[in-house]
């Protein structure tokens, strides 16, 4: 129908239906004026109008259905990208050249499209949080990940489609490039060095490639044909696509699996955790190939079992033995040694960082002796330590060996006095330089303890007497460091809280004695105040808050005269740290307002100091701790918006800056993990599940990375457990109870393991109890009251030895009250479902018993919390009315 015809049809029809029915026929006939098309159209409309049949358009789509349809609809093209043409076909999917539909970014991207990923609901979130982490990679040698996402299928593709948009790099795989341009060994090494720098950058950001191979390493000549540039593709993508690949997967994956297998390390075959050392192995294979144009192992035609045996056991021929004759000479010696070290079967015997590998090649090029040459004495020292514990960091080994060797020789050959000076100097070196170097090195927690312990051993062996005050101060400092590595919760530690407590106590005693000798000495005063503060930290983390508060107050009192006499940054910083800690203990004791006041007073000082000393890492971390403590306090007093503001505008930007400045620092990483966890909790409290999920996922990913970087770090495991707990919260709130229980169970398993590492640790027992309570609450929420009873009882059992019946013990005490309360509620609800009167009566009696116990505790806790129960798991009113209902139920 033309526009004109329709205009007329419409006008006639609309006028007709305004008329009384009897007049319509006449009007239409006249208006159509004998035009059969008009007449026909208008008549059809009138017929339809007058018979008034129900029509689907009369009923609007229900708004919820409409929302669901919108949410589930796919987009045009793939995500925001339009495909230009295919670049290549990979094992996991196709790579396209694509551009943004909206033209927002002009340059085309390489769009990796992964089809047939199963559409799990977490996939999109995982992509999003991984993308944020990969965003930290910013290196000219690494192709940037621009965007990643999951979209609903294209028209007839039933499964989800995930896409990764990456910087498009026109170039050749490194091996092809070298052969095509017939590069010399020197030129090849220069390219390899570029590659090392890029990989090192990623490792510093705790990102492991996992799938380094020539097709992922391109050489491009975009800048100029004479200066080829390396670009690494797909960083961290292997993990994104397949978080937990197992060994069989590795062997049986079709397509280009043979290619990938040649670069897989023995530990990848054995299904062990993949970390930076696996990338170093892959670099070794690549270097082998670059130097010889051959791969170290001939795998063609082998069965999967034979391939594994070959890679895990067979020592490949030296590069110089297989290379073309003209290269043989230049490879023999240094380069053979370097390649074989990188290819070592045991990760511990490879280069420990890519930087070491890089430096050795640099040395070789500069004709300086390389480090990889076997050094028999160092090697023997290394074996000595390996017998005692595996995985010592190379840096630690070297200095340990120096100390060991020096002591051994000096014992025989030198005078006792000279020995004393020598040992003391070395011990001091260990305590200052080496400890500082190791402080934030991932994987070095145990090495740090070893270093501090050894230093202490030698200091103690000197026995210079109490008159040598400098020696005494050194010893106290050694004890402090030892304690820190053993189990100070503020640092990466081995989780031995009771050992740490004892070491801090020793340091305290030494410093107390010094202070008794001369109470006017400001150095002694400062040292004593710090010792008191350390003891306070340990008390509080052992659940003894009252003790912690009193220790912190003592510390501030001891320090006060020093602050008055000398308000220098070093002193005021000690003071504000102690004050901040005091604030936190007060908050945990339920004295929230008082605690927040202390923290805010401390914050003013720390913020000022932190701003004027941007390179002082400890100070920056102090500032984060202050924000963290305040967040806790604000949450407890239901000031969620203020807390959210503090996190989003102060804490997280501060930590993100810190992670950028100190990319390998585990404490900065842990801070970021914690901050996102808190952020998630606050979003959840505001019912913003989507934002909460993103925050929690980011938090969990950060923790995963920390565990990968150093599996002996207790804090990393704690982080992982918090991550699972967070996911549990999220599932619980959205009603996915089974998933919530899975997540909480993972949390529980980690917590029980951590407790067994340190059974004296009250906080560890409290954490186990909390995990059980969460299981109970989830079952309760899913109306599985019977199932809720058992974990609740467990929760109580775990806390019982931690509280003695009389004293009020802050948070742990309150948790016991909550445990009894939830058990009471579960039993009461179970009673309601029970028809049999005797059984029902028994359940109600049991419920009443637990309500009574809960009530007794919570009444005291309520008073202690200054009457603020808004943020509790249940309020006093709820407790009382639940209890009353049980009493009513018991009446005949």
């Amino acid at each position: 129908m033309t526009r004109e015809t329709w205009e007329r049809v419409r006008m006639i029809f609309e006028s007709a239906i305004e008329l009384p029915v009897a007049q319509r026929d006449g009007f239409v006939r006249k208006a159509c004026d004998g035009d059969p098309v008009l007449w026909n159209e208008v008549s059809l409309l009138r017929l339809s109008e007058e018979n008034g049949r129900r029509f689907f358009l009369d009923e609007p789509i229900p708004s919820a259905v409409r929302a669901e349809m919108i949410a589930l609809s796919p987009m045009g093209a793939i995500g925001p990208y339009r495909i230009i043409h295919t670049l290549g076909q990979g094992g996991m999917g196709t790579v396209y050249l694509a551009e943004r539909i909206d033209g927002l970014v002009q340059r085309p991207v390489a769009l990796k499209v992964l089809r047939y990923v199963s559409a799990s609901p977490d996939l999109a979130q995982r992509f999003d949080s991984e993308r944020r982490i990969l965003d930290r990679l910013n290196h000219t040698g690494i192709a940037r990940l621009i965007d990643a996402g999951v979209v609903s299928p294209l028209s007839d593709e039933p499964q989800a489609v995930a896409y990764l948009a990456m910087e498009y790099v026109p170039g050749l795989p490194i091996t092809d490039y070298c052969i095509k341009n017939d590069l010399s060994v020197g030129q090849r090494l220069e390219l390899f060095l570029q590659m090392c720098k890029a990989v090192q950058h990623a490792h510093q950001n705790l990102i492991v490639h996992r799938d380094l191979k020539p097709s992922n390493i391109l050489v491009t000549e975009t800048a100029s044909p004479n200066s080829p540039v390396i670009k690494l593709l797909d960083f961290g993508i292997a993990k994104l696509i397949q978080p937990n690949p197992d060994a069989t997967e590795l062997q049986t994956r079709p397509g280009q699996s043979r290619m990938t297998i040649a670069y897989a390390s023995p530990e990848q075959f054995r299904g062990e955790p993949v970390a930076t050392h696996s990338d170093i192995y892959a670099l070794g294979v690549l270097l082998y190939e670059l130097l010889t144009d051959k791969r170290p192992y001939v795998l063609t035609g082998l069965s999967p079992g034979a391939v594994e045996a070959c890679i895990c056991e067979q020592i490949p021929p030296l590069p110089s033995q297989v290379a073309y004759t003209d290269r043989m000479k230049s490879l023999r010696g240094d380069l053979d040694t370097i390649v074989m070290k990188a290819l070592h079967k045991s990760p511990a015997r490879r280069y420990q960082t890519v930087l070491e590998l890089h430096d050795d090649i640099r040395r070789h090029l500069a004709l300086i002796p390389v480090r990889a040459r076997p050094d028999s004495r160092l090697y023997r020292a290394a074996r000595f330590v390996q017998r005692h514990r595996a995985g010592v960091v190379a840096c630690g080994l070297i200095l340990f060996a120096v100390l060991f060797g020096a002591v051994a020789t000096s014992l025989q050959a030198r005078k006792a006095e000279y020995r004393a000076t020598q040992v003391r100097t070395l011990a001091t070196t260990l305590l200052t330089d080496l400890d500082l170097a190791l402080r934030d090195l991932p994987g070095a927690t145990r090495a740090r303890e070893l270093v501090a312990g050894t230093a202490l051993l030698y200091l103690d062996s000197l026995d210079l007497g109490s008159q040598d005050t400098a020696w005494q101060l050194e010893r106290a400092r050694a004890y402090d460091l030892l304690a820190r590595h053993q189990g100070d919760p503020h640092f990466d530690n081995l989780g031995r809280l009771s050992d740490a407590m004892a070491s801090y106590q020793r340091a305290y005693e030494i410093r107390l004695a010094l202070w008794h000798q001369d109470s006017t000495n400001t150095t002694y005063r400062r040292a004593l105040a710090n010792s008191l503060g350390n003891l306070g930290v340990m008390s509080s983390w052992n659940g003894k808050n009252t003790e912690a508060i009193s220790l912190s107050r003592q510390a501030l009192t001891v320090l006060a005269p020093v602050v008055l006499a000398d308000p220098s940054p070093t002193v005021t910083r000690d003071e504000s740290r102690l004050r901040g800690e005091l604030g936190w203990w007060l908050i945990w004791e339920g004295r929230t307002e008082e605690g927040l006041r202390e923290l805010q007073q401390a914050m003013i000082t720390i913020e000022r100091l932190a701003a004027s000393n941007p390179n002082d890492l400890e100070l920056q971390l102090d500032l984060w701790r202050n924000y963290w403590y305040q967040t806790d306090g604000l949450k407890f007093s239901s000031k969620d918006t203020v807390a959210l503001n503090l996190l989003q505008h102060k804490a997280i930007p501060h930590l993100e800056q810190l992670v950028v400045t100190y990319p390998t620092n585990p404490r900065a990483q842990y801070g970021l993990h914690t901050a996102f966890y808190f952020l998630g909790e606050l979003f959840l409290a505001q019912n913003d599940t989507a934002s909460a999920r993103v925050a929690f996922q980011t938090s969990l990913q950060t923790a995963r990375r920390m565990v990968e970087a150093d599996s002996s770090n207790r804090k990393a495991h704690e982080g992982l457990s918090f991550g699972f707990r967070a996911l549990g919260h999220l599932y619980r709130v959205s009603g996915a109870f089974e998933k919530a229980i899975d997540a909480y169970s993972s949390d529980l398993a980690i917590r029980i393991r951590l407790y067994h590492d340190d059974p004296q640790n009250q906080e560890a027992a409290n954490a186990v109890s909390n995990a059980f309570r969460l299981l109970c609450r989830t079952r309760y929420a899913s109306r599985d009251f019977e199932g809720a009873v058992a974990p609740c009882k467990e929760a109580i059992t775990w806390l019982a030895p931690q509280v003695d019946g009389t004293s009020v013990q802050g948070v742990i005490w309150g948790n016991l009250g909550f445990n009894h309360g939830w058990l009471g509620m579960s039993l009461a609800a179970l009673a309601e479902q029970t028809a049999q009167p005797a059984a029902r009566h028994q359940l109600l009696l049991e419920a009443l018993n637990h309500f009574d116990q809960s009530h007794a505790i919570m009444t005291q806790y309520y008073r202690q919390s200054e009457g603020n129960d808004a943020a509790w798991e249940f309020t006093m009113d709820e407790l009382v009315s639940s209890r009353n209902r049980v009493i009513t139920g018991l009446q005949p």
Partner: protein
Amino acid sequence: MSEGEVTRLLVAWREGDTRALDTLMPYVYDELRRLAHVHLLKERDGHTLSTTALVHEAYLNLAGQDPLYLENRSHFFAIACRVMRRLLIWYARRRKSGKRGGGSEHASLDTAAVLADDRVEELLWLDQALGKLESFDERMCRVVECRYFGGLSVEETAEVLAVSPATVKRDWQTARTWLRVELTR
């Protein structure tokens, strides 16, 4: 995209720049889909959802504090209703292909029970018929989009399309009658 940019594009589109609409559309898709997700999650906790609120929220998120609030808001709603038509039709198409092809287990996971089968057919048919209607009466097509796909009321539709409520009422009535005829043709 910045808030100011969204406002600028809305103005450009009003002044006849069709490319502005093309630039804007992907953002409107994204934002609507994101918000719909958020609302779906919340709904389990007893929140209810109105489409108008959804679109309004999308507008505020994209355009923010817009000095030309009243005019731009209307235009934004018109775009959103068009987007919703496309999204709903995509959904229906996919639902249909999921039924037809292999591996329908996966497809049915998230599309189950949202829309009855006969509704899928109706939607696809309606989209075709609207294509036809649009060729000779564009405004009427917009009215159907706003009323049926966008879920707007007569008054809201009138505001969005800058016509009187009486016009919307008449358009809506005639459009439905014509579509009913079209269905039997």
